[in-house]
């Protein structure tokens, strides 16, 4: 009887196993294909469309060329992008005038769009005009390099293109290597433009008209993108050779499944696994794990400097000395990153002009209590600590530790976990008193960080700090041509940051790229995605 009732169940399992046993026949050559799996998704083929995702940025780097691109350098043995080495992509070479006000680009004579027509200076002009005038994301980005108007772009002859700047802005050239200023085939785009949409924004969302290394073969928003190599592409270098014939970008929402896929060898590379999975994969040693500190990003705990009690500098300092940094670093990141706490400054002054920088703060409850007393709140206060659901895997353990530790000096913390859209809305409205966030700068120069994240009444000024000296110094540094003076400004800004303690920098998380051992050439890029052109199979 026992067997009889088990029958259907075991029968079903047996049938299941049998059904699954056949081996699949692979149509394409697997070795020449790169399969990249990600938790996010590609939602547009034009990175300029408002709302486009980071995965869409990565795809656009392969489908479109820009005038220039970043070189790479080694940082602690890992390859990372190099902001100071700008090489030509569609431009064969470029000249910068001595007063830094004029950039001249000499286009490649042999560069062709994917439809076979040559790339001309007119296409470059149309594309950059679009980036600064159309309602696209490129506008705000290029503004940071003093590129604001179509009048600045001039066609000299079909292969020469000139950019004029109102001020000697160091970030003008690097800005042209970022994601947005893609060079579009203007004839094709214009043919698909409408009266309402002269810049073909809605057409380019679902079609490409570029000269990039890869051609879109199929695009299913939210599921997958398949690209094949553009055999006529010759903008590569040994570092960026676009060696795979085919690239598959696939959305796999579950991180454990992504880990399984890479471990089984069915996927070649992924960059967004959970820290715990990465540790176990690394210890098994069958895969290559490249951990690069995201040196253009920082995770911090922010305090709204305009909301009491955080408007009191001593309260901010008290919080800074009451956080259990080491425990948080271990619990949230499993130690995978670069800490920005516990530095030692011999004479009390910053040791670097770069940002983000390590600060000399560590857990010291007695000191925290003193600051709290100086703030006139020896018995503490109550507040809420917020983080978004998307960051829960790192922020949740961190929040628990923050709550526990602050309770020791009398600060009662309620943890608030918010859906991502709600969190960004509340940050934008400056309603959150105490929360954690992460920021990233594509062009990580000190003044850029300070200008974007510490000045003005705008969304990215998380701490809502309004310090006249900081604002003036950051503005001055922006156009400072002299390196030594620029460093002086950087040191000054960092000193103000430490003195004011608007928010507490915690660490730079690592970007953990997990890949098959046969994959080579991975480089950490400013957009924090994989540039598929970098990779090759050994």
């Amino acid at each position, binding site marked *: 009887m*026992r067997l009889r009732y088990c029958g259907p169940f075991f029968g*079903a399992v047996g049938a299941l196993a049998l059904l*699954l046993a056949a081996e699949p026949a692979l149509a394409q050559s697997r070795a020449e294909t790169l399969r990249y799996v990600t938790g996010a998704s590609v939602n547009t083929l034009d990175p300029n469309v408002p709302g486009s995702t980071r995965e869409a940025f990565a795809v656009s780097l392969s489908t479109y060329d820009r005038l220039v691109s970043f070189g790479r350098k080694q940082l602690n043995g890992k390859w990372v992008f190099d902001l100071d080495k700008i090489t030509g992509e569609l431009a064969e070479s470029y000249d910068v005038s001595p007063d830094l006000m004029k950039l001249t680009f000499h286009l490649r004579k042999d560069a062709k769009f994917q439809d076979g027509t040559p790339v001309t200076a007119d296409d470059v002009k149309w594309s950059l005009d679009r980036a600064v005038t159309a309602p696209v994301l490129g506008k705000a980005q290029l503004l940071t390099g003093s590129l604001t108007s179509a009048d600045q772009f001039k066609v000299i002859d079909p292969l020469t293109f000139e950019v004029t700047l109102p001020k000697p802005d160091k970030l003008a050239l690097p800005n042209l290597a970022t994601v947005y200023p893609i060079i579009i085939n203007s004839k094709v785009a214009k043919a698909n433009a409408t009266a309402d949409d002269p810049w073909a924004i809605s057409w380019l*969302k679902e079609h490409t008209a570029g000269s990039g290394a890869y051609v879109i073969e199929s695009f299913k*928003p939210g*599921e997958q993108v398949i690209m094949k190599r553009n055999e006529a592409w010759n903008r590569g270098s040994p570092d960026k050779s676009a060696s795979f014939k085919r690239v598959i970008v696939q959305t796999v*929402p*579950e991180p454990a499944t992504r880990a399984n896929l890479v471990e089984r060898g069915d996927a070649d590379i992924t960059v967004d696994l959970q820290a715990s999975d990465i540790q176990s994969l690394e210890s098994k040693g069958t895969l290559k794990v490249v951990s690069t500190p995201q040196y253009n990003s920082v995770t911090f705990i922010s305090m709204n400097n305009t909301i009491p009690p955080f408007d009191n500098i001593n309260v901010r300092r008290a919080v800074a000395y009451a956080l259990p940094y080491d425990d948080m670093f271990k619990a949230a990141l499993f130690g995978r990153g670069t800490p920005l706490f516990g530095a030692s400054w011999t004479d009390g002054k910053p040791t670097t002009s770069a940002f983000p920088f390590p600060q000399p703060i560590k857990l010291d409850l007695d000191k925290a209590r003193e600051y709290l007393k100086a703030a006139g709140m020896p018995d503490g206060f109550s507040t809420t600590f917020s983080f978004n659901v998307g960051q829960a895997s790192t922020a949740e353990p961190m929040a628990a530790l923050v709550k526990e530790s602050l309770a020791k000096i009398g600060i009662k913390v309620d943890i608030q976990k918010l859906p991502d*859209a709600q969190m*960004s809305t509340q940050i934008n409205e400056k309603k959150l008193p105490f929360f954690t966030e992460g920021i990233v700068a594509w062009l990580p120069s000190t003044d850029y960080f300070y200008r974007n994240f510490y000045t003005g009444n705008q969304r990215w000024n998380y701490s809502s700090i309004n310090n006249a000296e900081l604002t003036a110094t950051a503005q001055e540094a922006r156009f400072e041509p002299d390196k030594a003076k620029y460093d002086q400004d950087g040191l000054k800004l960092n000193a103000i940051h430490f003195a004011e303690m608007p928010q507490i920098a915690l660490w730079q998380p690592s970007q953990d790229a997990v890949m098959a051992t046969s994959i080579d050439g991975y480089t950490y890029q400013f957009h924090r995605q994989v540039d598929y052109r970098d990779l090759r199979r050994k």
Partner: protein
Amino acid sequence: MSSLPALFGVLVFTFLLMRVLPGDPAVFFASGPNAGKEEIEIIRKQMGLDKPVPEQLLLYLYDVGRGNLGRSLMTGQAVTTDLRDRLPASLELTLTALLIALVSAIPLGVLAALKPGSVIDHGVRLFCALGVCVPTFVSGLLLIYVFYYLLGLAPDPTGRIDVFTSLPPSRTGFLTIDFLLAGDVDGWWAAFRQLILPAATMALFVIAPLARITRASMLVSLGSDFVRTARSVGLSWWRIVVTYALRNAILPVITIAGIVFSTMLGANVLVEKVYSWPGVASYALDALLSSDYAPVQGFVLLMASIFVVVNLLVDVLYGIADPRVSI
């Protein structure tokens, strides 16, 4: 026709509910580096959020009346396109799961009812309890771990079809049917292999209610007078159980199956996530998290319509199972 007012109510309610939620989609989608006030305004205008809510509602109702459910910011596509692409995936998965569940639950329920209180009965109860206790993402990950990772029997759990297999011309949207229509046996096999694990995961979860209701209603009909009469006249065991008892016991099972189907379709989001299944439920969840209004509204409307259709279908099935019922 009588369900139209209900659908209209659902439509308006969802619309208002989404506006009441505290997340602002424009701020969320304008979160690229350097996206400032201007970008937020662009998106707001694009979504029509710059107008007052009553006007937005009227515009939305007008659009829905013309079959336009709006545009999703998340995928950049029209919501109708997204749903049309994704609904067959969800339906195929859910129908297969329901089939597996019915085929295993009804015999289990009948067996349990034949020997109430016996080892079989307790065994079925234990199996059902396990199935319902283990959340689908746990059983899903477990099945993946065993059949894909350890044994290597299952294909990689990434969607409806192996990325290297070319798709058949889309006729019904159901891959297994499309492959058969195209006469591509290898393709059918590939699609079927992808389908079986997620379907089994979902089935495990719904076997319990189906088996329990079968057991209960079988017990009632086995204890009834007509079964005693059938026994006394010496009819065969099979005939008594299947023709007389089961046929009379099947009505509540159909009702429950209808409800289970509707819930499965909307609630299989965890299975869809674990297996990267491009279905409507995971689509709606992503949209909800990012406060993307149009897809959520479209999804709820779709689910409400499906519920109406399923109820109708259950009524028709009643008529077949029990001739006394007329619709």
